[in-house]
């Protein structure tokens, strides 16, 4: 039980839309262990984003429990929720949502504002995170001068700023080209393997979803019983067994030695 980072019990979410009741989530029971890399798939309107919002303390469920890092979120008063969002959750958005008037490192520092960390430590942490996502040299650039992929990497660094229990990524590759897509998914996979970061990624791209360790399916607000293992399992699968070069998880041929994997 102790390695459970996030658990939901009988989660229901009902919206009222134009006088009509819409059941976005229905009896969702989910258990996420520390170090999990989970992708949630489902067609549009299946409640993926709603689930993520509820998990990330942006929204409250109509019924049921959300236990995040041992705390029952549904019992936390509205005014205290910001603390959960600040320290327990890291958000990655489809549209990156960086502050356009702040440069890369300032964007990463932003969630640490108002924490007890001294300024120098915050700066160092932001710098380390940017190095980790491979953008140390571009730390003084504003989002407008970064490519979409780079912006998303900054956003991932920002999500990690307060060392959250879980990173929630809502269609993180939705606005990216193919190359940037695999870069981002690889980065998330790397974080998961190297740092043990727990990640929940919502996507409707089955290709990307397959890179996670667990694939869950959501339909009409219900979590389907079927679950799939993803291709992303171990670090060794990221390197060519013949020449040792880093490869894409879905490469069928090694780009260097050309051997079939």
């Amino acid at each position, binding site marked *: 039980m102790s390695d459970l980072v996030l658990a939901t019990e009988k989660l229901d979410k009902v919206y009222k839309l134009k006088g009509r009741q819409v059941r976005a989530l229905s009896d969702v029971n989910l258990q996420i262990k520390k170090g999990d890399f989970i992708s949630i798939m489902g067609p549009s309107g299946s409640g993926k984003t709603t689930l993520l919002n509820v998990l990330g303390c*942006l929204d409250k469920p109509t019924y049921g429990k959300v236990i995040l890092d041992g705390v029952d979120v549904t019992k936390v008063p509205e005014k205290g929720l910001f603390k959960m*969002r600040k320290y327990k959750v890291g958000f990655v958005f489809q549209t990156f949502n960086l502050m356009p008037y702040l440069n890369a490192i300032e964007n990463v520092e*932003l969630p640490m504002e108002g924490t007890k960390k001294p300024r120098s430590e915050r700066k160092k942490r932001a710098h380390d995170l940017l190095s980790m996502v491979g953008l140390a040299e571009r730390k003084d650039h504003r989002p407008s001068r970064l490519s979409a992929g780079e912006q998303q990497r900054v956003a991932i660094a920002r999500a990690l700023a307060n060392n959250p229990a879980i990173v929630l990524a809502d269609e993180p590759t939705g606005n990216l080209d193919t190359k940037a897509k695999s870069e981002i998914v690889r980065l998330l996979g790397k974080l998961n393997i190297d740092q043990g970061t727990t990640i929940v990624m919502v996507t409707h791209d089955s290709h990307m979803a397959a890179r996670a360790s667990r694939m869950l399916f959501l339909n009409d607000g219900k979590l389907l019983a079927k679950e799939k293992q993803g291709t992303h399992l171990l670090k060794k699968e990221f390197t060519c067994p013949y020449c040792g070069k880093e490869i894409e998880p879905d490469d069928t041929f090694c780009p260097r030695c050309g051997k079939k994997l």
Partner: protein
Amino acid sequence: MLVVIALGFSMAIMISIPAGIMANQKATEQLSANYNAYIGDMEEEINKTLTLIQCSLSRGFAQNRPGFMTTTESFLNETAVNDISAIEGVKDVLPFLEKTEGTLQTRETPRGTFEMLVPEYTIVGIPLNDAYIDNYGVLPKDVTEGRNLEEGDSGVVLLSLNNTEYFGVGVEDRVNILGSYFTVIGVYETSDRLGLRKLYMDISDAQSVTNLEGQISRIDVYAEDQSYVGEIVSEISSLYPEFYLTTYEERLSQIERMSGMYETTLENAEATLGQTQAVAYQEIAVAIVATSLIVLFTMLYTVRERTQEIGVLKAIGFSNWSVMSQFMLEGVFMSLIAAVVGISIASIGAPVLSSLLLPSATSSPTSGMQGRQTFIPGLSLQTAAAAPDLQLMLLTLGAAVLLGALGALYPAWRASRTSPMEALRHE
């Protein structure tokens, strides 16, 4: 940027108007003090001279209105002194020569163009006779440097303190007056509230330096006794019908007339000031409301524009309070910048702004005034130059913080209440 300029103007108005009012108030107070002192001096002087009959060709202090006097300086022949001395009951006859030197200025007023003599200094020629000096106080009393004039002095001059500044000389220096050099024998503290710079010298020196040989501007006739005054007046009138004679009673009634006139002017000035203040309060209120509204709408717009950003801030863990304080700070900051802009505008444009926005408190020359006028600096209500002082500027900065916070309060509160989910969905 435009918003800041608009705010700046609104703040400039907030500064300029009080500055204008303060300046007007000060001017009126100064004027009132000057009037009272002036009238007091005159009355005191008149009471001392019960036996004095003044003879001149002009009406002396004939005033068209406060602050200006008609200076048709006219001179009479010295020989009159001997004729008058011969009249029975006359004790002493003192000739004086007073000539004001100055520059002619043309003043454009809404009622027409006037030529005005702006006095620079007045030469006063005195009969330097010890008996006269002792008995009739013809010389200034409060000599602070050097010595006073004495019988027999020639080629020397007694300067008022403000004259030493004007000529740039001190005691024992030589001073050039209308082309002739005089030695400064002493300096007296001027009690002349009108600010006319007077310099005293022997009457014959004065006649030669002003090219008025054998001419004088005024004769002071002292009777043996007050009972002789009537007879002497009629005697002089028959000898010199062109003379204008004033006795104690006439001078007293003249000063009363003048005093009445001054009071009317003061009352007018105060009434205008009252009106001005009423208008000013309205304008300041409008400026304050405008400032808050500008901040309010700008911040509302900003909050709307940045809804998504607010959503992100909340998603990454900003509390309602920190979102609210951020927008409050922005509002205050904006209005502070505007205050600085406003102060800059006001320090340059306060006189213009306040004169544009406030009804004028200055009295303009009355119609029908003709001829050359002498402008008396101390007794005219001048256009008060509005200049914002430091206190007012600090007050404005304070007001800016307050109004910025006030205007930003509602938008910031709205921002803090935004649901992060809704905000993130906002395009």
